[in-house]
């Protein structure tokens, strides 16, 4: 097959056609677009499509290979599940933002050069922010603006690096970079990518913005931005030691915050940092098995994290809050939601038979294989924290625990949401039970069997004894109605400081300058105008008027000769004729 329809095209065109449809046709259309994209990915063959020349730059829209395909598969599947979950939303804008977001993420996946990648990278930031704003609360609007500014900053880092890279190599081609060859340009690009992957300390935009997103928007958000970043890191920056260390730090950092957070969606947001940390560490370790693990974990993570956000979103949608301190005893009202949430929770925790078990362990085992026992231990410590907060703390305080004073009049969420959760839960189970379905998609051919005795023993000890400590210390973990500072403190307080500086220093200076201008500047201007006027009247007008007067007086002489009588004209003509003749002769 020589031609191929880029799956992003379905989303972009679909988003534009969406407002033209009404009622059931629109709902069908919203589900049809991702299905069309799934078909397009299914029929994709490895190769390079859509190469173009623009301003002397060689660009590629469609680089289809194993690495881009494993991400593309999960992106289009997730797009379908997300669209199903959001199906009840009436606003066209929400669906359109979702489609543009997914489309641009797919565009970034298949981009073969930095320029194409950059364009889709920016569309991604600008379309996803609407999914935050569609929550339509003051907090979301503010968080959305912070999110946007932070991503614009990241885009600028990437752009600066890209331009310097072009200056250095004369090409925008986006290929694997060797750590030994990397200098300023490459590290700037890496910083831009790392910001989207929420690598410390460029991570604060994520737990700031995602918990403020719309219920349905958060399901999209948690899937695409960070995983596109993992993809570009895996494409360009395998084997960078700094990624191995920072990734491992992310895994532990995320779970520490998850232990102290109160809002379910904030707990989950910190767990995105933690889980993406595993992938970043996998890319940093850089062996075939580790990169495979990063790709596999991205695949599994998108599904179970979306499932968790769907569950938390359902609780928020039906009860009006996602704060653990105001929830409890929901198993009576939302048992199905609870079961689906628990499937997500055991998947992320890496229980045998669920997806996290077969993907996370590849990265941990890769660290083990390389003899990086410290990395491996920290990654397993993060595993403890994952089960502790997502698996136990959130489940216990939301669905069990004490019911709040005023009972929550909750019901199961709408059918489309339940179906989306059910299908996602099923996929988590299928990947866990039949890991080969996922492994065949991975970029490198590696023999790995997750279900071996040593790994089972290691995982079960970690999970079960974490359960024991939770049982003994559950009181210590009761949610606290607090806000926990993160590095966004520096720019949020920093902007407040700047505003104060503006108010106290810049604004008074501006007033002073204005006053100075009014008194001195304006007076000088008036004087100058007066002088100009004088010069204009006396000098310029004198010349112009003088000319005009001469023409007028000449005209009045000529006027006298124009009597209108033919004999006078003939007489005058003859007189002139003879006068000229006399002069010439």
């Amino acid at each position: 097959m020589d031609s191929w329809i880029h799956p992003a095209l379905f989303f972009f065109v679909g988003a534009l056609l969406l407002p033209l449809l009404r009622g059931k046709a629109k709902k069908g259309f919203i589900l049809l677009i991702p299905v069309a994209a799934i078909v397009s990915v299914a029929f994709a063959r490895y190769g390079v499509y859509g190469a173009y020349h623009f301003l002397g730059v060689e660009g590629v829209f469609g680089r289809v290979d194993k690495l881009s395909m494993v991400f593309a598969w999960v992106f289009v599947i997730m797009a379908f599940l997300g669209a199903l979950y959001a199906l009840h939303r009436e606003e066209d804008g929400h669906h359109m933002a979702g489609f543009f977001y997914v489309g641009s993420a797919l565009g970034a996946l298949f981009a073969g050069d930095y320029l194409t990648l950059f364009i889709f990278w920016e569309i991604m930031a600008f379309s996803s922010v609407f999914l935050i704003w569609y929550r339509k609360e003051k907090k979301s609007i503010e968080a959305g603006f912070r999110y946007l500014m932070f991503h614009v900053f990241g885009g600028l880092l990437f752009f600066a690096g890209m331009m310097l890279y072009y200056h250095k190599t004369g090409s925008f081609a986006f290929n694997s970079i060797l750590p030994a060859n990397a200098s300023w340009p490459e590290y700037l690009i890496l910083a831009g990518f790392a910001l989207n992957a929420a690598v410390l300390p460029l991570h604060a935009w994520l737990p700031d913005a995602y918990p403020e997103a719309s219920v349905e928007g958060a399901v999209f958000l948690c899937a695409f931005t960070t995983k596109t970043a993992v993809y570009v890191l895996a494409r360009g920056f395998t084997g960078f030691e700094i990624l191995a260390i920072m990734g491992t730090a992310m895994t532990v950092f995320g779970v520490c915050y998850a232990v102290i957070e109160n809002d379910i969606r904030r707990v989950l947001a910190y767990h995105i940092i933690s889980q993406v940390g595993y992938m970043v560490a996998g890319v940093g370790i850089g062996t075939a098995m580790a990169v495979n693990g990063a790709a596999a974990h991205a695949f599994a993570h998108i599904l179970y994290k979306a499932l968790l956000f769907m569950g938390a979103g359902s609780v928020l949608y039906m009860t009006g809050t996602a704060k653990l301190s105001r929830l409890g005893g929901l198993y009576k009202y939302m048992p199905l939601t609870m079961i689906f949430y628990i499937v997500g929770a055991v998947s992320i925790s890496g229980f045998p038979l669920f997806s996290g078990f077969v993907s996370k362990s590849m990265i941990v085992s890769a660290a083990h294989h390389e003899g990086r026992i410290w990395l491996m231990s920290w990654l397993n410590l993060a595993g403890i924290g994952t089960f502790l907060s997502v698996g136990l703390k959130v489940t216990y305080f939301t669905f069990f625990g004490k019911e709040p004073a005023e009972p929550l009049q909750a019901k199961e969420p709408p059918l489309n949401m339940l179906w989306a959760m059910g299908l996602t839960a099923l996929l988590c189970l299928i990947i866990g039970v039949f890991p080969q379905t996922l492994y065949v998609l991975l970029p490198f051919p590696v023999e790995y069997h997750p279900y071996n005795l040593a790994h089972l023993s290691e995982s079960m000890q970690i999970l079960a004894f974490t359960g024991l400590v939770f049982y003994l210390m559950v009181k210590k973990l009761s949610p606290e109605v607090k806000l926990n500072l993160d590095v966004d403190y520096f720019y949020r307080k920093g902007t407040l400081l700047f505003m104060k500086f503006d108010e106290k220093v810049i604004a008074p200076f501006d007033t002073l300058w204005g006053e100075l201008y009014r008194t001195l500047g304006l007076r000088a201007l008036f004087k100058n105008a007066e002088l100009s006027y004088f010069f204009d009247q006396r000098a310029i007008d004198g010349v112009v008027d003088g000319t005009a007067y001469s023409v007028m007086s000449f005209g009045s002489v000529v006027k006298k000769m124009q009597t209108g009588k033919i004999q006078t004209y003939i007489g005058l003509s003859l007189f002139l004729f003879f006068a000229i003749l006399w002069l010439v002769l």
Partner: protein
Amino acid sequence: MNVLKIIEYLIAKAAPLKTAFFVFLGALVLFDLFLPRDNAHYIVDKVYAFWTLFALAGCFLLIKISKGIAHLFLSKDEDYYG
């Protein structure tokens, strides 16, 4: 609803489930003692029930340290940023 009945049945059986959980914990440690260790190169593979000890200590410290730091300076009122 059936699902709810199953959950309530399990909650009613909390005491025997708890016993079963503790038996399971013991069984896990025993299982690790009999695990073949031919390929054990590193300390994490050589020490018996290493991950049990790791989980107990790790989980305890994770809670203590996170909560400790939070109470020390991270926790603020919810309207801290206004």
